């Protein structure tokens, strides 16, 4: 850097003595004089004046737009109210964008998956394996669970599994919005198979189930949903593509056929869900005779409805895409367009046209002119839970099996014991046996020889005798031969 003040090159501009030989290069900044400035007092006054103006403007703006805006500007969003300003409070939805189409996954249509739960701890892991396997894009599926009146570890296990699911490393695994709704209805009905399916308990049980479903749906349905999928957690086997498979039919309400596997002694398999059916004249006539609060339930001898059931129409080799119009639906796996629920169709927790819950849902959907279909040859498999009778039967079978085993074991033991006891005498026996056999053979040979001679003699006699006496003689001879044979065989068979 060249010194600017050549004229005063030898002067002390900053109090430091300057060396005379080093005139060409210096890095010292002290050589520069500060710019001539106005007196400090005036500067300060100016500054105050400016600040007053800013303050005045600020206050003015504040009174014109009272609110958080100034604060957030001043605080640059660093203090907590800045966050409040970040909150979005207005939402806009066009419901005509969420009608549901046959190829929803391409249009990014969101599905609400609803699962009502009660004391379902034992099924949860199986259900989550299904969740892992769904091929419909997971981020488009919102999960909603209603946990009610559970005495087991359903709730903690559910949240644990869900947390793990959302934290999954695979970006394709986590689902959309996840709601766990806790609500107890004070249900007194037991959840075991027998009390669940007993006829007397059906009506009130179905009404309570319906209530739970309605609470779940009304709390979880959002304006951005195009589809709603109801799924029981105790489905054991179902295609991974079930959502797409059902969606492709583009129906308002659609259900697959639900069967369950059985142990071999019960026939291997069995229709499970009898709530998907077509209405029959008999059932309609029956409905007219019942009182307002009665609920017709399927699968009980008390109400013979003669309805065609989806379950019984299954052909294992039938076309899985075949559709059948139905009036009542079962709740194991229902895919419905969200607009069905938006229109007000729900699971009647009262007797609607003599039906409740999912059957009433089917009836109500039909009442509002929605299409309700079932797929008779597209089957999913419900978990087999043995009934009390089955368990008794299985216990009996188990007993029987054990008894048989015991018997066989005993027999084996006995034989062994006998063998053990007579093991020394065995060879002696053999010797004796052969001895006896030899003797018997000798005897037999002698006998045969004698007989031959006798026969020869007889034949000669017969030739000489009259021809008329031949028949009785023959008989006598036959009997004699038999006797001889028996006698000869005896010693052979005896030793054992």
């Amino acid at each position, binding site marked *: 850097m060249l010194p600017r003040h050549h004229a005063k090159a030898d002067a002390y501009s900053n109090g430091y003595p300057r060396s005379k030989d080093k005139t060409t290069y210096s890095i010292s900044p002290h050589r520069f004089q500060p710019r001539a400035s106005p007196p400090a007092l005036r500067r300060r006054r100016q500054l105050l004046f400016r600040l007053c103006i800013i303050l005045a403007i600020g206050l003015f703006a504040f009174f014109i737009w009272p609110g*958080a805006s100034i604060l957030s500007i001043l605080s640059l969003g660093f203090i907590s109210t800045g966050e409040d300003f970040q909150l979005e409070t207005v939402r806009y939805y066009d419901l005509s964008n969420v009608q549901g189409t046959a190829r929803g996954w391409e249009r990014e249509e969101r599905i609400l998956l609803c699962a009502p739960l009660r004391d379902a701890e034992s099924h949860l892991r199986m259900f989550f394996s299904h969740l892992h396997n769904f091929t419909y894009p997971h981020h488009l599926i919102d999960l909603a669970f209603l946990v009610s009146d559970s005495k087991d570890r359903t709730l903690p296990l559910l949240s644990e599994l869900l947390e793990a699911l959302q934290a999954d490393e695979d970006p394709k695994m986590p689902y959309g919005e996840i709601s766990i709704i806790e609500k107890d209805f004070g249900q007194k009905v037991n959840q075991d198979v027998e009390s669940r399916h007993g006829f007397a308990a059906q009506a009130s049980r179905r009404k309570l189930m319906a209530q739970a479903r309605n609470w779940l749906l009304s*709390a979880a349905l959002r304006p951005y949903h195009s589809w709603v999928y109801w799924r029981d957690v105790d489905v054991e086997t179902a295609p991974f593509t079930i959502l797409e498979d059902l969606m492709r039919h583009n129906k308002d309400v659609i259900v697959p056929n639900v069967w369950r596997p059985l142990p071999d002694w019960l026939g291997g398999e069995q229709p499970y869900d009898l709530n998907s059916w077509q209405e029959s004249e008999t059932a309609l006539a029956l409905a007219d005779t019942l009182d307002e609060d009665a609920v017709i339930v399927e699968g009980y001898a008390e109400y013979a409805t003669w309805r065609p059931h989806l379950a019984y129409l299954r052909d294992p080799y039938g076309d899985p895409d075949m559709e059948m119009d139905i009036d009542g639906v079962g709740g194991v796996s229902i895919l419905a367009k969200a607009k069905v629920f938006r229109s007000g169709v729900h699971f009647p927790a009262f007797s609607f046209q003599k039906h409740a819950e999912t059957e009433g849902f089917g009836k109500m959907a039909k009442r509002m002119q929605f299409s309700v279909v079932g797929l008779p040859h597209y089957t999913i498999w419900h978990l087999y839970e043995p009934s009390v009778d089955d368990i008794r039967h299985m216990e009996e079978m188990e007993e029987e099996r054990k008894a048989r085993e015991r018997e066989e074991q005993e027999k084996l033991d006995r034989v062994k014991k006998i063998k053990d006891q007579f093991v020394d005498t065995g060879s002696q026996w053999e010797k004796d046996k052969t001895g006896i056999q030899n003797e018997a053979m000798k005897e037999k040979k002698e006998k045969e020889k004698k007989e031959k001679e006798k026969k020869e003699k007889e034949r000669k006699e017969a030739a000489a005798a009259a021809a008329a006496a031949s028949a009785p003689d023959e008989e006598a001879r036959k009997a004699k031969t038999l006797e001889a044979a028996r006698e000869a065989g005896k010693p052979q068979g005896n030793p054992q």
Partner: protein
Amino acid sequence: MGPARSLRRSSPLTIVVGVILCIVIFVFLLSPSSADTAAAKSRQANAASNPLSPPTSPFRKQVDNGKRVPPPVVHYKMNNVTSTGDPVGNRETILILTPLARFYQEYWDNLMKLTYPHELITLAFIIPKNREGNAATAALQEQITKTQKTGPEKLRFASIIIERQDFEPPLASQGEHERHKMENQKARRASMSRARNSLLFTTLGPSTSWVLWLDADIIETPPSLIQDLAFHDEPIIVPNCFQRYVDPKTKEKKERPYDFNSWQDSDQAKEIGAKMGPDDILLEGYAEMATYRTLMAYLYAEGGDPKDKIPLDGVGGTALLVKAEVHRDGAMFPPFAFYHLIETEGFTKMAKRLGWNAFGLPNYRVYHYNE
């Protein structure tokens, strides 16, 4: 130079800091949007982390960085959702539902005057997708922006949802005369039911305690409407809907009963119903169909106690307070003939089938717009 100079230079800085501090303190003291107010706190507490959350709660704006953040697992303890006679004391949230065909400024002004804590109120609208609906949406959005963005914190609502209907209303014109023709009633009310159900079941969410149905043409109510209705602690309660008008003869300001859908059933009506086909509906307020029902509209007594309460078999939907659990149990507005009743009257019947009863307040008035 030296120490004296540096002192002089730093003093304006101290002043600047001091003044800024003063301003901050000043703003903190005066600002209604202070983070310390209960309203703001409850807003913060109720805020959800993403836009998929229940629409009754506000949500934090998402930073779009192209990466999808999986939404969290949220527990909703619905055993703790109450609806009691003291909704303000128990901090119960209310959802005000309005099927909107035309926007009236008076309606909005009346809404703003409600004394129920606004941070506990969620508004939801459903608007048809036609020309009229577009105009109504625009007008509504203008008011919403004014209130939610720049309005005083105290008057801001917790959340606002606007939905556009996915089906056409059956009538092109929504004129009062056209609307009330008897043959048009069934189709109109069926469509209205669908709109109401769509709005209700997509916005109810897991935390709502009360649902207030308020028609877009209700332009005057007592400011304490919600508290007054909830005070009775009934599952379904409806005030008496009147209309102000100017008598053309005497030029006097008068009022007349407007909503005839709130009634107690009569034997005659039941008889007519028994003779009807399964799809026919009973209508009120038409001379062709004399039902002899007891109409709440005519039970209003000048100077009567506004707390007087009567049981009802059918309710009107102009203003209607319902406990959320009634709707959650499945009580909806049937868009078909349900016991020969439709819409709000059918709703009353369905609620009754589920074990919930309806009541009316004959001396408690709200006012309908006069076209």
